[in-house]
């Protein structure tokens, strides 16, 4: 019987027929998730586009025509700097006020933006998972206190909170020691993690709460499994999908937060010119009509964020099929 069904089951685009479910070897959950992801067209396009952007940024030292902080001369035999040159065949995205090539700077800036985004998402995801799992698993009073705290934190204006925390290390040496030096990546990642863990905490808590009531957990308990085993063997594998989805969205949120802060002048120091930092002078550039200096960094930023969010959407369809689309603000 297996012989008949095998070739069909190997075809990745073919769904397991429910009627034939007993005959066709069933696909693994991972296999099904990959299939669902591949059918999400926007997510697939975004994955490719984001890969291109990420690879270009990582390979900036090879790809970029000029150095990150290199003031380029107008021509080989001239000392005149190529200041405020509009986009042309030599400078694809134009040059800035001291003659640096914007295309090269965007590639290097992407390294900073993507790194901060991914690192923040991992750390915020871990904090949120720990708090959410603890609250959901223990329940009762601990759950109540933790979730009240989470609610309160969600209510506060994120940007105001993060800007005030950003100023702390500048005035207080202890804060610089705990959170990181002003303008450092460490400080930025710490601050973003501190404000971004709440969504994950809520999601994980919800999933854990509902899983706790499931029969298979009860069955595990009945055969004498301890808390640790239940968490590691049953709860974590079943929550990993929603966590990955939440973390994907946090990557986008973290890139936005970092670029917003750098844009407002509360971000990283100038040696780490992220995409947001490249836009910091947009006010002057708009008045003086240097449109390329504003247009290109914002378009790259926008494209990246859209790609990540579409990937998150695709991952949600793939990993979290039971979940209806959550409205995320």
């Amino acid at each position: 019987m297996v012989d008949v069904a095998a070739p069909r089951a190997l075809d990745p685009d073919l769904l397991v027929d429910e009627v034939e479910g007993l005959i066709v070897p069933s696909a693994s959950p991972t296999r099904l998730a990959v299939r669902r992801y591949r059918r999400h067209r926007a997510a697939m396009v975004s994955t490719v586009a984001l890969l291109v952007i990420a690879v270009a940024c990582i390979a900036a030292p090879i790809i970029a025509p000029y150095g990150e902080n290199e003031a380029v001369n107008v021509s080989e035999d001239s000392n005149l700097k190529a200041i405020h040159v509009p986009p042309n065949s030599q400078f694809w995205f134009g040059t800035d006020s001291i003659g640096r090539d914007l295309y090269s700077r965007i590639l290097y800036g992407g390294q900073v933006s993507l790194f901060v985004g991914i690192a923040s998402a991992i750390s915020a995801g871990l904090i949120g998972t720990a708090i959410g799992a603890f609250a959901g698993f223990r329940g009762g009073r601990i759950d109540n206190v933790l979730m009240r705290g989470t609610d309160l934190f969600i209510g506060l204006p994120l940007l105001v909170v993060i800007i005030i925390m950003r100023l702390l290390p500048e005035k207080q040496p202890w804060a610089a020691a705990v959170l990181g030096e002003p303008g450092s990546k460490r400080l930025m990642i710490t601050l973003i993690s501190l404000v971004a863990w709440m969504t994950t905490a809520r999601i994980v808590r919800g999933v854990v709460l509902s899983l706790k009531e499931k029969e298979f957990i009860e069955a595990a308990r009945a055969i004498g499994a301890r808390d640790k085993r239940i968490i590691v063997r049953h709860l974590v594998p079943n929550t990993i999908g929603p966590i990955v989805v939440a973390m994907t969205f946090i990557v986008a949120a973290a890139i936005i937060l970092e670029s917003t802060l750098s844009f407002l002048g509360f971000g990283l120091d100038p040696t780490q010119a992220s995409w947001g930092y490249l836009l910091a002078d947009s006010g002057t550039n708009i008045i003086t009509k240097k449109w390329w200096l504003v247009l290109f960094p914002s378009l790259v930023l926008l494209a990246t964020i859209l790609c990540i969010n579409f990937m998150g959407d695709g991952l949600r369809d793939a990993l979290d099929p039971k979940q209806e689309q959550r409205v995320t603000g």
Partner: protein
Amino acid sequence: MARYVILRTAWAIPVLLIVTFLTFWAVKAATDPVQSYLRINPRATPEKVEQYKEAHGLVGSTPEQYVRWLGNFVTLDWGNSIKGNTPVWPDLKSALANSLVLGLTASFVGITIGLGIGIFSALRQYSKFDTLATGGAFVGISIPPFVSAVLLQVFFAILLTGWLNLDTPFLPVAGIYPPGQTEFDLGLRIKHMILPVTVIAIQIIATYSRYMRASLLDVKESEYMRTARSKGISERQVIARHAIRNAMIPIVTIAAIDIGAIVGGLIITERIFEYKGTGDFLLTALANGDFPQVMPLMFIIVASIIVFNLLADISYAWLDPRIRLG
């Protein structure tokens, strides 16, 4: 109902005090008023500094300082700024007024359009319009406000102005009035608000169309809808009287929470468009380490969030009896 309101209000007061105390502590550490005073007055003698600390209640433990500050705040004795030594209240008042004008206008425009799109989407689920609106909302939520703001500026102030061969930008991209204008002029005011309102409204339209769509789809599945239909009421009436009304209940509470966040939520838009509101006020005050300016605004921001959250809870209970009776 009265009991519910009293209980919720009683709970809000300690929360307000605790949060504002933590804010007080954090803002004081982040602005360091004494250091700011010395920066503005570099030649102040140690006695002068002591005098300043004494006069502004910066002596004693943090809880003591907070209680003293709160006393002054409640009696509207808000003191003077460190930089420029100007009274805090008049500047803060005009910033608050400007932010409210901007925020409420954008909320009104955004919520109206958003709800309209959401209702239309839900009534024609999976139609072309629905697909387009859902996709558009997804993109709208993804766009960071500062990116949409600078893109609008580039388009209206540079590109469009260039294509149309205009001498002045098609739409103003900064300020509340053109430089030099001091008198009230409704036309100019509206013209200066178009771009900032658009930036804020994009986000609001995107979120509310999603909320409304989800909420209305939820209601459409409910049994009382079938009951209403089986009574023989026309479809139009069923939608207007039963579906939309019930779908609005969660929206009202979300709107209440969002309106409470206006005072502290427009920082980016205000900074980019040089709109003299609370966001601009806060960023400038923070840059100067001007504690006497920052703290009253922070108190208002926190209080407004807590009060409007309370209103949201109460309105939810009032609109949906299941909450208060359950």
